[in-house]
């Protein structure tokens, strides 16, 4: 058996042991997410518009990740709507910045890997790099949205009469608790992936100015920064969606009470 199969089986067994049915569901979501990511790559290779593919796949990934984890209906729905809004806002930010930064495609550091490959493939790499940046933040958006909405729905459970204005403050308070550790997840996640690149820079003695303008370096740092922006935005947006949902529920409850 290959290493991936065995590691995957170990993960599945552990997830079921620790989380039971929810664990099995999360594992399934992970596999489906991989399938969606690969599908996105194949579709782009077939000349579908990278941005549209990313938006559709992104929405599906968010839905899968959020609804297949355990959680009550209200918090899952709120988390999904909020993360979808964040995704759209993020696209509006990433598209112009990527076009401005000119970090599309590959850099001189990639030449060895590109040996024997034709790079003139007729697909705009600005769009591909934009798609990459958006996809790499999806997990972080879903996680942050779920954490905030779960925290808020717990507060609602304990204090069902809390005013929507107080709820707004609570959302930011929950966000403050998670932001430090979430940033570290992103920092280590990304830097773990770029370790080899950074070692390359010091090994080949790039100057500070060269690193700061290097295509690959800037593109990778931009990905971290986009992910951070998405997490920061998730906090107020999720809180706002939650207050709307609660206000809507109360209105309906009030009308039923009148009848």
């Amino acid at each position: 058996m290959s290493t991936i199969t065995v590691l995957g089986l170990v993960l599945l067994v552990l997830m079921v042991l620790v989380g039971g049915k929810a664990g099995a569901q999360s594992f399934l979501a992970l596999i489906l997410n991989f399938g969606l990511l690969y599908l996105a790559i194949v579709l782009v290779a077939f000349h579908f518009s990278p941005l549209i593919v990313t938006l559709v796949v992104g929405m599906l990934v968010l839905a899968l990740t959020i609804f297949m984890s355990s959680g009550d209906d209200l918090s899952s729905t709120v988390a999904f709507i909020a993360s979808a809004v964040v995704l759209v806002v993020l696209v509006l930010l990433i598209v112009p910045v990527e076009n401005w930064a000119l970090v599309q495609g590959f850099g001189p550091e990639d030449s060895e890997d590109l040996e024997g490959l034709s790079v003139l493939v007729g697909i705009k790499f600005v769009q591909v790099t934009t798609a990459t940046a958006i996809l790499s933040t999806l997990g972080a958006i879903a996680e942050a949205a779920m954490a905030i909405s779960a925290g808020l729905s717990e507060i609602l459970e304990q204090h069902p009469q809390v005013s929507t204005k107080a709820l707004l403050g609570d959302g930011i308070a929950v966000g403050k608790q998670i932001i430090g550790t979430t940033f570290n997840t992103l920092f280590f996640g990304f830097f773990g992936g770029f370790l080899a690149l950074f070692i390359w820079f010091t090994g080949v003695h790039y100057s500070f100015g060269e690193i700061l303008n290097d295509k690959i370096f800037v593109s990778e740092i931009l990905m971290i920064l986009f992910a951070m922006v998405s997490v920061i935005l998730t906090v107020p947006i999720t809180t706002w969606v939650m207050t709307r949902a609660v206000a809507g529920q109360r209105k309906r409850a009030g009308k039923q009470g009148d009848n």
Partner: protein
Amino acid sequence: MQVLKTKRGLLWAWLIAMVVGGILVWGTAHDAALYRDPIMQVTSVETGKATKETDDFHNIDSQTKQVLSGKILNGKYRGQRLTVNNVYSYSRAMDQKYHVGSQLFVVVHDRNGQHLTATAKDSKRDTTLVFMVWLVVALLLLIMQFSGFMAFLSVAANGVLFFLAIVLNGSTQGAQVLWIFGSLAVVFAALTLWLVIGANRQMVITLATTLGGTAFSIIVALLVFHMTHERGMYYESMQYVTQLPRPLFLAETLLGSLGAVMDESTDIISSLFALKRERPELSANQVFKSGRQIGSTIMGPLINVLFFIFVADTFPMAMLYLKNGNSWGYTFSMNMSMGVVQSLISGIGIVLAVPLASFLASRFMDKKKVTA
């Protein structure tokens, strides 16, 4: 730092950050004098006709020549006017299309001072980078206020440590990469948790869980590697490798999962501490159970965070492989297999941290433990 907790102090901090950041962004657009390599600002562009190109795999692309005229902004050629030939393709994977106003690094060929010619090297990107950093800091301070400042501080502190470790790794020719980044992981975790939680019992338990979970996942990974003889792992597919790939891969995985495991154990343990404060009558077993429940809802999304970070990055190269007539399987092996292995190892660490956090918290959070 206390001043940041008051409303007025915060407003001032925010204003200062905005203004300083704004000046920095503006400054990077005018900082050519700081660079040693000559930088040219494009003042006019003449674009030629596009010529169609078809490669061996029937990919249709086009190439366009442009003549850029501009002025050197720095160094000994400062003020000199130049023209540079540049070719860009439709897909632009390895080339650039420049516009009027673009700043780019050029290599100047001086032929005895008679006629200056130059070739385009690369685009200048520091302004975009500084702008985005500014945006993140401004949003953080605006929405998260003091906590945002602390979060930023911990990321900055870790960044400095990370840089030092890389320099250290370079000075040992990469022979000790796993030890360097292994010990760095301990320092990282201790520093971050101290900044986020403060120095107390809760922090010690969280630190123990983080280190334990990460260490267990690496041990499990090494066992599986040994059993399967690393079948299906293509170290040669790792990018930018300049030293022995296997220890480097393990160091990357270790660092990558550390943050997520830390995130998770902080969440579980702080919830359990809060629970115990509200209901001190809960027994250790009940605390353990709630810890497991909290953990099992957050582990899935966290594994997903890392999965997308590790694997989405391979998108452009994987797509290029497909466009160059490679099979789906080969494209996966050569681009994504290592990222998937990394995600799985981190996932194992994240899952193992759940019982570990619940166990440690349930047994050791009571200060007045009766030892009768």
